[in-house]
């Protein structure tokens, strides 16, 4: 457990991580679906995902579905652990 995480705690990234953490470990969500769900713009979601990807928290899979490119996202194991650690750290603040 890595504890409080400044990368995750930014509000939009916290929502992205919370959404992805709600999926099972082998499930991936479509970029457009996540964008609609979180009501973020393409650019905004893309920028935050880049940051999370650089941290090793999120991975992307690009596929062609019906000849159209689509991107699917999921938490990496590191990302899931970091998120759980962040949640524990927040709970610890509440408890202290």
């Amino acid at each position, binding site marked *: 457990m890595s504890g409080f995480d400044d990368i995750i705690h930014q509000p939009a990234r916290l929502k992205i991580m919370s959404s992805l953490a*709600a*999926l099972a470990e*082998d499930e991936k969500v479509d970029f457009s679906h996540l964008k609609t769900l979180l009501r973020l713009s393409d650019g905004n979601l893309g920028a935050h995902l880049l940051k999370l990807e650089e941290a090793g928290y999120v991975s992307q899979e690009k596929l062609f579905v019906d000849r159209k490119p689509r991107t699917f996202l999921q938490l990496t194991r590191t990302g899931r652990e970091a998120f759980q650690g962040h949640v524990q750290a*927040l709970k610890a603040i509440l408890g202290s």
Partner: protein
Amino acid sequence: MPTLTSEEARLALADIEKTGKRMKQAMAADAFGYYLIVWGLVWVAGFGGTFLRPDRAGILWTVLVSLGILATATLGIASQRRPKIRSSHHRAAGRQITLFWTAILVYAYTLAWILPLRGEMAPVVVLVSVIMLGYVIMGLWARSLLLSLIGLGVTAATLLGWHLLQPLPFMLWMAVFGGGGLLIPGAVIQLRWRAAKP
């Protein structure tokens, strides 16, 4: 540890819970919201139509069930072709679900046909109860309390109506509590995740 107040931590945790819940609602809406609406409409129209025109019940149900199967297949194919959530087990799960429902329907019709039953409405009760057993099992399998509760609730309403009512009013009862028991939760699932603010 950052300088975060307990109020800020509480808000962040609430945000995490709300967003995770919204994702799960969206997955539930995608997985079975539309199917509940389709079969709720079939039952409302089927039982309601049987109440109004019992002499045309055979043709009415044949048409409605065919439309329901067609709509279900279309939704399933669309969901496979443009998935919002991908996983290694989803395609296999789709096949298992299709086989499961085929088996449930075969058993339901076989039991309604071969069992010595009390009263002319008993085959309807058997059919509905076995199909609702399918909802209960599906709910346990998919870890959806709502699906299991729909199964139990509609079964209870069916048995109650059968004991209390004459055959024709029982059809109206089934349109409301059987069809409505599927349609309303399906509509609520769809509306809830769309209405919820992230």
